């Protein structure tokens, strides 16, 4: 794709400053995203990991400005290439959508218009944003379908979504998202609705396209396995806040937040013998209308003490590529003594940890 403007190849692309997204509902204000800050460089990929209700999807949509207007309260700044997106207004955002940033959704079946041919859906943004004529747009759409590796692309242009397989639909959606050559691509659980063998193909495809086009990618997922192989950095979300953010290798090698640790230990792993006891996190995520004071993970955290329940830990940088929000991170004295206690009482097995 030809980029509409000359873009710098490096530097910061996206910066969030204390972003908050709240929804006013009948029961009260839901603090779905509550003070998230981070930066993302051009050409890099960031994984946002969290369980359902952690606010990861709403965070992605808040950045893009794709939330319904009614009842949504957004504070904080989203700086895109130095420009505050909040100041753009809906009309200005429309120029950004599709051209500067675009999005892939979880379920390709419901996210593609069921009554419109694939070719038309791909050429629509081309015609709207790049003023292409019909013939040109169709040729470009064909090229895009080839790029995303759909077999028999000519035929697919005139087919409807229900005539394609799940993997092909997701490829078509990626083609739509890539159509106008965006700088930032959001992928919101892009493979959750797909089979594992197809999931691997789609993740590879996103990775390849990112490299070819020097895009930044934000990959939202609940699956730590998915981000491990496919992102440069990872942000772990819990109950609307960032628990930990680090480069991928650093996070897996040297996780600091007890939530990240618990998450990793609760996943059954292939390389463990079968019937290995999993570490379950007790309780369930907090109600976001009345979140706990202090650290939001404290009620479920085995290492929590009074300070954790009273004071909110800030996200602090431990090193250049690692920051976390915890009073007693993994490896701290309290963590160590509590860990020994848990092992001795049999709650944790000594081998329960991950190498």
């Amino acid at each position, binding site marked *: 794709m030809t980029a509409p403007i000359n873009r710098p190849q490096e530097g910061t692309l996206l910066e969030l400053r204390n972003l908050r997204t709240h*929804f006013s*509902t009948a029961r009260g204000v*839901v603090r*779905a995203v509550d003070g998230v800050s981070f930066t993302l460089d051009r050409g890099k990929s960031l994984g946002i990991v969290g369980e*359902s209700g952690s606010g990861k*999807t*709403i965070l992605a*949509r808040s950045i893009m400005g794709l939330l319904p207007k*009614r*009842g949504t309260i957004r504070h904080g700044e989203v700086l895109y290439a130095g420009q505050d997106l909040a100041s753009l207004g809906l009309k200005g955002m429309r120029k950004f959508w599709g051209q500067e940033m675009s999005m892939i959704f979880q379920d390709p079946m419901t996210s593609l218009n069921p009554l419109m041919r694939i070719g038309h859906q791909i050429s629509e943004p081309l015609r709207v944003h790049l003023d292409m004529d019909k013939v040109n747009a169709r040729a470009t759409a064909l090229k895009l379908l080839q790029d995303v590796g759909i077999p028999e692309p000519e035929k697919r242009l005139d087919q409807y979504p229900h005539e394609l397989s799940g993997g092909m639909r997701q490829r078509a959606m990626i083609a739509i998202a890539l159509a106008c050559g965006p700088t930032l691509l959001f992928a919101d659980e892009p493979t959750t609705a797909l089979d594992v063998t197809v999931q691997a193909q789609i993740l590879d495809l996103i990775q390849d396209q990112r490299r070819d086009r020097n895009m930044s990618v934000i990959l939202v997922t609940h699956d730590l396995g998915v981000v491990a192989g496919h992102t440069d950095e990872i942000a772990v979300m819990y109950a609307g806040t960032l628990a930990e953010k680090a480069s991928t290798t650093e996070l897996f090698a040297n996780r600091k937040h007890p939530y990240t640790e618990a998450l990793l230990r609760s996943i059954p792993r292939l390389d463990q013998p079968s019937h290995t006891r999993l570490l379950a996190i007790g309780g369930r995520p907090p109600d976001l209308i009345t979140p706990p004071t202090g650290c939001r993970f404290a009620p479920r955290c085995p290492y929590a003490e009074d300070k954790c329940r009273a004071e909110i830990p800030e996200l602090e940088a431990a090193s250049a590529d690692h920051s976390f929000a915890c009073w007693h991170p993994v490896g701290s004295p309290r963590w160590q003594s509590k860990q020994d206690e848990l092992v001795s009482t049999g709650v944790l097995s000594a081998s329960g940890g991950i190498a």
Partner: protein
Amino acid sequence: MSDTVIEIPSRPNIITSLVRRIPPLRKWKFGLVLSVSYIVVLTFLAVFANVLPFVRRYNVLPKGAEARRLASYRGKPSSEYWFGNDKLGRDTFARSVYAAQKTLTIGLASIVAALVIGGLLGMLAGYYRGWYDRVLSVIFDVLLAFPAIVLALIVVGRFFQGGRLNLGVFEMDKRFFGVIVVLTLLSIAPLARIVRAQTLSLSQREYVLAARGLGASSWRILVREILPNLLPAMFSVAFTGLAVLLVAEGGLAFLGFSVQLPFPTWGFMINEARSDLTKGGGWAVFFPCVLLFLTVLAFNVIGDRVARRFDIREATL
């Protein structure tokens, strides 16, 4: 023809579910309160019409001297005649209340009968599917393709010319019964279709599968698992359906296919007084019209509230 489905939400996506829970800008329950009070008052009047002094004290069919006195009727509402009177000098208020008695009974009896029959047929068609479903859907199509007035002609016009009908426990006017039969027949098909579509979607739910896995009989599944989930929708449809039936009864009565003696329903009253409209007889048309409109509106409001309470999508009847 595909069916009108009332969608029972299963798992809406997080954002829409969040936004949908936002209260509507007006939390205006006023309409509901007003509607319910109106219906309560109207029902009270209708039920106790024969006992209430302010309904009874007026001679509905004036004779002799009173009739002569009223021959030069004024028609306008007054402290004596609250709703005025018609060209025969009859008191419109008393007649309207007696008409309410008839209209409400007819509407209620028809919608209950239609819900029981249509609900049962719809449930069976949706649950058993196959040939059963196909035969029933042809029957529903037939019922829908029947012109209402021909149905009314056959049932009211011929079978129930007049006289009393003895149904063991009940004894009632034949014509009255005929109107109920017509209205029931007219509403069975639309109701059955709604229930069928609902049952179809409910019987795909895993808890129905679970009950079958437990060895529950089909009857038990229908009664214990499916019916309770159908009830909110049926409840809502009962009110909107009642509103539709009141309109339909009005039309039939207007054309003379409903009860007329000793007291007509509102529709007939409107038609009766219509020719008098230009000669100052407007009040005798106005009040039955207002009552009919308000009653239909009240039932619609209640039905709508019930539907919203249970998050049921709007259905057409």
